[in-house]
């Protein structure tokens, strides 16, 4: 934490306590305050001052009917469950034999699964200090609930990603860029029983009218694993079960550019490749 930042945030504490900051600014302050005892102490005092301002008014006598109204409104309202922390194993490991539909781009689901796992672990690890992080926990729980809803719709695909990553026979494949993709990075995870997960970053745009196709090459023969789904600029992902026919043993994973829809055998240039 630089002194500049500390001073910038320190100057925002008044506005924070008065509720004058935007949500982003509030987050910035809260993040700093958790790490900075000086600012935390300052803020504690400011909150006492704020409460003092609220208390500076003389109490008034509420109209008698108001109590009746309040009490009857409470009777019809359920109470929220006590706060709980999401367990890290929020994503179930799927049973064997889960299949994925080809042609769907399930990359975001893998991202969702990774996010859920990450959130679970993060929430778990902060358990001791969760009082400091209640706001984040609430947001994370909302995010998890949202993701869980989406995952329910596409559970098979998300499950496949998790099953590949957690398979006992999974091996990471070091990928490197070729030709005009030498600046690209990619990570691939191959499980002969579960399938392939590949994430590529900083990929150049495919040539006009071409797409990227992923191949698993075993015993010298390439088998299509599917098309690399776009995950935003320069980013691609594919999660697929093992292509049929791949010979057991060492494989090479490769990405080539091909015409839309892909081909049964590669025809274009290899842009990314890696071998076990």
């Amino acid at each position: 934490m630089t002194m500049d930042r500390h001073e910038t945030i320190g100057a925002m504490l008044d506005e924070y306590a008065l509720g004058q900051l935007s949500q982003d600014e509030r987050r910035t302050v809260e993040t700093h305050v958790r790490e900075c005892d000086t600012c935390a102490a300052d803020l504690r005092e400011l909150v006492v001052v704020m409460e003092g301002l609220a208390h500076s008014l003389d109490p008034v006598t509420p109209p008698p009917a108001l109590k009746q109204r309040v009490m009857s409104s409470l009777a019809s309202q359920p109470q929220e469950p006590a706060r709980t922390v999401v367990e890290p194993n929020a994503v179930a490991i799927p049973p064997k034999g889960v299949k994925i539909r080809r042609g769907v781009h399930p990359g975001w689901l893998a991202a969702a699964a990774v996010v859920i796992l990450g959130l679970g672990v993060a929430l778990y690890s902060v358990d001791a200090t969760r009082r400091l992080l209640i706001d984040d926990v609430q947001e994370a729980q909302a995010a998890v609930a949202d993701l869980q809803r989406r995952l329910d719709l596409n559970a098979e695909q998300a499950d496949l990603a998790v099953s590949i990553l957690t398979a006992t026979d999974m091996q990471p494949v070091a990928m490197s860029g070729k030709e005009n993709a030498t600046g690209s990075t990619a990570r691939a995870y191959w499980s002969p029983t579960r399938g392939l997960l590949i994430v590529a970053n900083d990929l150049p745009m495919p040539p006009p009218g071409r797409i990227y196709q992923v191949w698993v090459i075993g015993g010298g023969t390439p088998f299509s694993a599917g098309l690399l789904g776009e995950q935003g600029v320069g980013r691609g992902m594919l999660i697929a079960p093992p292509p049929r026919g791949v010979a057991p043993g060492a494989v090479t994973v490769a990405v080539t550019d091909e015409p839309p829809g892909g081909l049964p055998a590669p025809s274009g240039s290899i842009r990314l490749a890696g071998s076990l």
Partner: protein
Amino acid sequence: MHLVGRLASGDMDAAGELYDRHAGKVLALARRILRDDGDAEDVVQEVFSQAWRTATRYEAGRGTVAGWLLMIARTRAIDRLRARQSRPDTTGEVLLEAMPGTTMAPSDQAIANEQYARVRQGLVALPAEQRTALELAYFEGLSQSEIAERLAAPLGTIKTRIRTALTTLRRSLRP
């Protein structure tokens, strides 16, 4: 079991007791902010509803119960005021839980009352222009630039007034 704990277990008598103890303060704050009795009473209902719903999540040691209720009241009332004035920004509820270490505000009501009394005395003693700027920020939920506009004063001047006022009030907390 303390009052909020009883509230969390669904005890309506505890809700009645909480109301009897604090409704007068909550209504006073809501009226000061909204300057409308009907709206202020709606806020009182919202505050006790929120307290009822979320009592299960109330953390003892985060300050006094009155402080908790008043913070909800201010947030609700200012949100309502802004909606009325078509100012869409919502008030940030100060995140008590963000503070590491010991409790945010004194949980002991007697100590808290003493500190609140100091703030009140300090507020009365502030120079008028500082007090006005601070009250516009606290009771009307105005941003510093909105206060500058309202008072036709430069933004820097308003910032200084509020900072000076808050520094004075913080000093008043220390015996």
